[in-house]
């Protein structure tokens, strides 16, 4: 079903409270959204017990999907379109509603199954992540999936630990820097500007690289041969997205 924008917002709030903050909101807390809450109650998406509102079996996957779309949208806006931090949340809220079921999967594959949003919050995994689908023409790959000699620019770094992130930063591995994979066994060796670095699997998986050709993609339909295996529908999406700014 197609949910309205403000309904999705409320589902999002409920998900964060229930799954991430682990404290269910009371009915009073949600008083501002009373009409929407009533509607969700009617349709069986939420239930109320002890004055606490929680998502039902029917509501949970729906809310998870909204969260996923919102955070994927943020990733997309931030990594690919370079939207500034300050505007990110608001834009993503508008954006997520454009991502229908199926489209979020394309975006997810396109971005290389990112695990967190630019704010560092987890993006719930979709079916595509579980199957590690890579058929769609991806633009952003973890360094570990590149083949020797491939080069691009650092798109973002997803380091599970702050320490790791800082070490990579101190080595000059920062978003926007050109990066080239020299070899991948027994360790990864990559080049950033005039320096070479060696790293293990974990580090190579934390560096996401945007492969070249995406800039040229704007407005061009049949130029690059490497993207011919992407379906027309996905390419259409790309052009729509990239033309927006």
């Amino acid at each position: 079903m197609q949910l309205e924008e403000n309904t999705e917002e409320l589902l999002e709030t409920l998900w964060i409270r229930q799954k991430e903050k682990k404290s269910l909101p009371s009915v009073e807390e949600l008083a501002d959204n009373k009409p929407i809450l009533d509607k969700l109650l009617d349709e069986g998406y939420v239930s109320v017990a002890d004055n606490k509102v929680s998502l039902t079996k029917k509501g949970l996957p729906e809310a998870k999907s909204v969260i996923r779309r919102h955070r994927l949208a943020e990733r997309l806006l931030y990594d690919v379109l370079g939207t500034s931090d300050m505007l990110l949340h608001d834009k993503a809220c508008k954006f997520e509603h454009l991502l229908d079921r199926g489209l979020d999967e394309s975006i997810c594959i396109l971005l290389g199954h990112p695990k967190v949003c630019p704010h560092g919050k987890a993006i719930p995994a979709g079916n595509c992540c579980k199957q590690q689908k890579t058929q769609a023409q991806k633009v952003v790959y973890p360094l570990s999936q590149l083949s020797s000699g491939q080069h691009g620019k650092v798109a973002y770094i997803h380091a599970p630990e702050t320490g790791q992130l800082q070490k990579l930063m101190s080595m000059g591995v920062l978003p926007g820097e050109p990066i080239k994979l020299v070899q991948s066994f027994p360790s990864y060796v990559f080049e950033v500007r005039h320096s070479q670095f060696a790293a293990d699997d974990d580090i190579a998986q934390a560096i996401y690289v945007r492969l070249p050709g995406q800039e040229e993609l704007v407005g061009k339909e049949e130029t690059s041969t490497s993207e011919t295996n992407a379906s027309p529908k996905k390419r259409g999406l790309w052009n729509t997205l990239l033309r927006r700014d």
Partner: protein
Amino acid sequence: MLKDAPKQIVYGAAIESAIDSIQKLLAGNYAVSKKAIAILLLQGDTEIADKVKAREGDHFERITEIISQAQSGYGQELSYVMAMSRQQHARDILAKTVVSQPKIGKGFAERLSRITMHPVTGIPILIAVLYVGLYWFVGVFGAGTLVGLLEENLFQDWLNPLLLDAFEWLIPVDWLRNLFVGEFGIFTMGLTYAFAIILPIVGTFFIVFSIIEDSGYLPRLAMLLDRIFKKIGLSGRAVIPMVLGLGCDTMATIVTRTQETKRERIITTLLLALAIPCSAQLGVILGILSTNGMALLIWIITMLFVLLLIGYLASKVIPGKKTNFYMEIPPLRLPRLSNVLAKTYARLQWYLKEVVPFFVLASFVLWLGDLTGVFDYVIKGLEPIVRGIGLPNETSEVFLIGFFRRDFGAAGLYTMVEDGLIAGVPLVVAAVTLTLFVPCIAQFLVMIKERGKKVALAITAFVFPFAFFVGFLLNTILNALGIKL
């Protein structure tokens, strides 16, 4: 001077205003500017935060508020945002000042670098480096040629007889004279070993190590071995203490400080104490075994097997999380002779300062033990154990001396070989047991200092019986297989 480049990095407005407000709140005295302190605080530097907390008292809370307020305006961590600003600033300067020509092909250094890192070509190169550097230069040239020249020609034939005569005239009392020129004499044993055996071996090792270090080969070695080292709970970074351990395990144990986690430090310390022979030991053992290729091979395989097995088991037993491996790979360079010599000189100076007094002290203790007869008991006590692993009784003295310095022990074994007291299977067994055997006293003391009494004692308590156990096993296996060496 750049005219149009801003002299200072400008961070985002929210960060800049936070820097200003924090700067104003800082009242204490700091070695660096208050602005630098403010920037470090915003970047989440815990060390600085502790200092500021101690010096600013109530203001610290307000500062924390300012930091979290500044953070709330950004999606990424402030340290990340600020690093990006600096990066941008650097890029701006670069764009205005540097014109870079596209590289035409790969230079020789780059091609050589690729060859050293490629697994197919890298491993043979690694073996070649070890063969030429350690076996040939340290083992054959240092422990063979140089030791021969210094020990036999200079000390035994010339210097020691001279001293013997001088002391006979100076000190007519036998037992006292023995302190200086007896079997365990300060001159005839301590200083002879220190300058005639250990110095040339350690010296040649430090030359090789400095060349390897200056050429930029170590990080390449680290990246080649990272995968194997992960299996024994370490990362490629541990290559540096391990290779240094082949020079001096005491020095290497101090260097384990640079490792990131406690777990890594303990595992490295254990492996250094157990399975990494120091250059003095290595030089003497290579010197003893080099005439018999099969014996040398058995020794190498046993050492590698023990290293990997114990490392693997230790990584399972010792708690703690895995560490990541990352390292800059500098371009390969031709080492400068002057740098290599300067480094070798500095290391030798360190080594002699640490070692010579110890040789003198060890000579004294051995002389005292010999004089009072205490050592006879210890040596007698060790004899059944030594015999149990198929070695002649004389080796128990070598093991006892080995506790004072590992290299002392190895050098004692050298003398036994020269005197024809030991050869064949027992020689390999003795070499293996002695290599594994307790660390020398200097290393033991450093272990206590670096890892604490508990860990140091636990490691020693493990190493001691384990060394004899491996010796026993090796002796049994070699005899059962009927191997003659």
